[in-house]
């Protein structure tokens, strides 16, 4: 994903529900736009908001975080943490002048291949309409170091 003319989406999926849901979409041959890259973590609660910002900084047009449905988290309460963190992050994005819809949180279970397909296609379309993220002040060499 080098050029910046097509949407680039990073999808963080938890191992137990949403990554299996992504697999289920593929196993059912549900066709999706290929502009997303899944990164697996054990739980959606491993996904540090800073990591999401890192993805946006590195050129992602949008970041999807997908976890188990409320009450179904493999780690009991992990997805509730995710829920709160993403809500805070969206507030922060707003403050920074970044469209909060660039970060999307979804609950996708292991058998919801259809939902995974729908969410991904929808999100890619939405990000395509929004275009690449133009960060006002790209860091100077000094700041980056």
């Amino acid at each position, binding site marked *: 994903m080098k050029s910046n003319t097509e949407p680039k989406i990073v999808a963080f999926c938890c191992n137990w529900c949403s990554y299996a849901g992504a697999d289920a979409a*593929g196993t059912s041959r549900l066709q999706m736009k290929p502009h997303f890259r899944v990164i697996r973590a*054990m739980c959606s609660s491993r996904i540090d908001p800073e990591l999401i910002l890192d993805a946006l900084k590195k050129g992602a047009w949008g970041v999807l975080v997908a976890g188990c449905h409320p009450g179904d988290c493999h780690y009991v309460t992990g997805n509730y943490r995710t829920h709160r963190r993403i809500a805070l992050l969206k507030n922060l994005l707003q403050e920074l002048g970044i469209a909060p819809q660039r970060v999307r949180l979804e609950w996708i279970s292991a058998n919801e291949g259809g939902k995974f397909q729908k969410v991904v296609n929808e999100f890619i379309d939405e990000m395509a309409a929004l275009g690449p993220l133009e960060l006002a002040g790209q860091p100077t060499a000094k700041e980056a170091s």
Partner: protein
Amino acid sequence: MKIGVYVCHCGGNISEVVDIKKVTSFAEQQADVAVVRDNAHMCSDVGRNLVLEDIKKHNLDRIVVAACSPQFHGKTFMDIVEKAGLSPYVFEMANIREQCSWPHFNEPDLATRKAKDLVNVAIAKVKLDESLERKTMPIGKRVLVVGAGIAGIQAALDLGDAGFEVHLVEKEPTIGGKMAKLSRTFPTEDCAACILSPKMADVPSNPNITLYTNSTIEKVSGFLGNFEVTINRKPTYVNDNCVACGICEEKCPVKVPNEFEQGLTTRRAIYVPFEFAVPYRYLIDEAKCIYLENGKCGNCKKVCPHDAVDFEQKPEKIEVKVDTIIVATGYDIFDAKEKKVYGFGTNKNVITSLAMERMIVHEAEGRTTRDIGRRIAFIQCVGSRDEQIGNEYCSRICCMYATKLSQLLKRADPKKDVYVFYTDLRAFGKGFEEYYKRAQKTGVKFVRGRVAEVNEDSKTGKVMIKVEDTLARQIIESEFDLVVLSVGMIPGAGTKQAAEVLRMTRSPGGFLQEAHPKFKPVDTLSDGVFICGCAQGPKDIPDTVAQASAAAARAIRLMNRGVYAVEPITAVVDEDLCSGCATCVSVCPYEAVKTEIVNDKRVAKVNEILCQGCGSCSAACPSGASQQHWFMNNQLRAMVGAALGEEEE
């Protein structure tokens, strides 16, 4: 650092979409990549040996396999890497099948580009992998089996016989489940009670099985090797003194429909569920007992010669610790009232197949409970294969039980006219097709067509059926004495409750989801939790018994060695960076993190046995001191960079 990259064709599943050559030549250009190969089936013996030999020959110290999902073959390759003498955690998989070639088969160019990115992501991560080692944990031999129908009974007996400690929990006052209600079993026509009751009797006589009837699981916490279960036992108001003499029953003034007999007979408020119930002991129906309602009867207590009636019994909470769990919570029959067009509940001559099972038992025992009539119609697929009521699935048993019931009726009285109106006749099992042929020869009339109308003649009470015979292409309007609805299966109330308590995923029909439909049919995504029988999906008795034994064997596989391997992907704290703020302590769902003083400084400490490796604490840590092995901060960032085509620095 020397990385080996292996790209799988998956016999065309990948290579028909993804240009493998482009992926391998991309991999060859990446820094530190020493060997790149592709193979038709990386998971085959040939493919595995390729990895094994390359590691030794080329001194590879990192491996990337681009193939199917890590959830499918991750373990296969980790085992190979370990066999070659490396840590199984210096390995990554790029999922270019489920998440690339399959969902993007119309766009081969973009799919190839994505496959390269996914390989790049795996390379970026593998470079930062630490040489973690699998640890072993002690595990005991204790199993919780939830549900004591034929599935739970079979699993419990297999485990008990193998020397494992079984806690068998049943929500009803007796074990036996739905099978206990059946007349005979297809296609052999064994009497259901005759083959089930010996197995039921084996349960209390097995020294390794503790039985909890009238009980449900209220709470389960912990994990494989360490589950803590709270069992809630409802009072029966009859204690162990009961010898089932039956004197109490004679004096009970309450009469209510007998649910075991599908309301065809009545029972008292103090009763034994049925004649071969286990435990064979009276209990009081607390919703119907006069004494429990207003204190104004107590006849049973007065007449009991053994002082067995105890109105003071209270619900009891029992805590047990187990290592593995088998869920065998079964099904409920579809509530035929929901299918209003068939008139069940308003038309007294429309009954369920389960009622017909009981009527046939009663006939055989010479105690007719209601007139069967001369003309009988079976309507198939009631609550199954019906999108209108939201059940798309086939219940798998109704074709064969209707075939059974119809020919039992016909054989008992050849003068009866017995019709089966079906959608498709599915006789898929061993001996089923032969059994269906026999029913046809007996004279049962099988008509293909979904019944459109069922109307009661208010004068005669007979039932008029309107249906199109789709083979003969004619509309049939015919009168019957009795209409039997072949009701399908829905997930049982116990299955729904168990799914909630154990946080199990359910399939679209609401039954419990297996870890893999073909290779892990009784495992779930939770380690140490297994499923079997109709809790997993509709099935007949032979399949249920086979699955129950399979679940027992899978549980034994984990427990038998006394130790099991745990993944070392736990949290780890850099004590130099840690400020002792204890944010991690507050987010841990397992109380696995605590703070303590080390060298005059408060720091967080992770208990690696309790830590389950979610990584929530690592995400929460404000100073980057808390990290998760195999998902370290630098690894996640490197993966993000690689996914977005960032050049390596």
